[in-house]
């Protein structure tokens, strides 16, 4: 019983250790300057690993991700700005290398799409509610046959008989 519990605990620790908290950056890559290293880590989280595609280069153990991390750090040491480093990689790998796509005419639909859908949906709901409030659904007029049947039903119900 206890052994089982221990196994579960170990498994949990393993999962946590392998989770998103752990970065792939190995000690030999880390820059001596903590400020530059912090920028490198932040940049690494913004850049896509082209091999694994849904991981950042900060998270990925792929050799290409390691190469890209090294390039980021070299350029940081050389004094490049964050934007210049991103541009350097976009020139080689395209906007795809950025985990956050840039806002430009080709991506307007991507960025504004959810807002448009929300507005359209909200508009529809508003229009529907307003219509319901201003023009409540009226029951159709009874035709003579229906009127006659209604009177018959009312007459047959003892509670509805006129006092």
């Amino acid at each position, binding site marked *: 019983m206890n052994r089982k519990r221990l196994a579960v605990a170990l498994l949990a620790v393993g999962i946590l250790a392998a989770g998103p908290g752990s970065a792939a950056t190995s000690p030999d890559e880390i820059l001596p300057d903590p400020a530059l290293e912090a920028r490198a880590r932040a940049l690494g989280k913004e850049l896509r690993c082209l091999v694994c595609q849904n991981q950042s280069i900060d998270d990925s153990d792929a*050799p290409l991700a390691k190469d890209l991390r090294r390039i980021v750090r070299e350029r940081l040491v050389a004094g490049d700005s964050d934007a210049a480093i991103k541009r350097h990689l976009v020139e*080689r790998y395209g906007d795809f290398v950025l985990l956050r796509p840039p806002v430009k005419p080709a991506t307007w639909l991507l960025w504004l799409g959810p807002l448009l859908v929300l507005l359209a949906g909200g508009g529809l709901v508003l229009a529907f509610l307003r219509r319901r409030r201003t023009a409540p659904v009226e029951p*159709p007029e*009874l035709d003579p046959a229906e009127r006659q049947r209604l009177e018959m039903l009312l007459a047959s119900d003892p509670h509805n008989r006129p006092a």
Partner: protein
Amino acid sequence: MSTRIGEPSATRAPRRGWLYLLPVLLFAAVGVFLALGLGRDPQTLPSVLIDKPAPAFALPPLPGRDERGFSSADLGGRPMLVNVFASWCVPCRIEHPVLDQLAREGVTIHAINYKDAPDDALAFLRSLGDPFTRIGTDRQGRAAIDWGVYGVPETFVIDRDGRIRYRHVGPLQPRDLERTVRPLLAELGR
């Protein structure tokens, strides 16, 4: 005929009948996008270097093969291919006969030997054939990154002005030759 009370009369409903078609239309639109998306391989990325000059590089030779190496100066003059390969890359073995075939037809193929041990690369070429005119060794994989390479093999078609016209990701197969590479080389004029 008996009519039940409260049942809406038939004359009201059909006025907004087109609204009921809206979900169907939306579904069709989403379906078209999904169908288009299914036909694409998300692993295959477009190259941003298409129609741009190949990046500047100068790679050392493969020791034991020749002393020439491979640099941007070797590009252009006529249409050619640049193949990124490594001896440890299994798909490269699969595509190698295709490259051999092209070379026999007279197509110039240069190569970037990516993150490889020179001895392994030499053994690879000895056993499978050497279709390459020039080979540059890129042991750190830096030149490949300048080319936007994210895996091996990759093959680029270069025009006579030294611009990249096409990038193929993964092993070149005979059908790729027929569909894209040969027509493009013919268009670029050999």
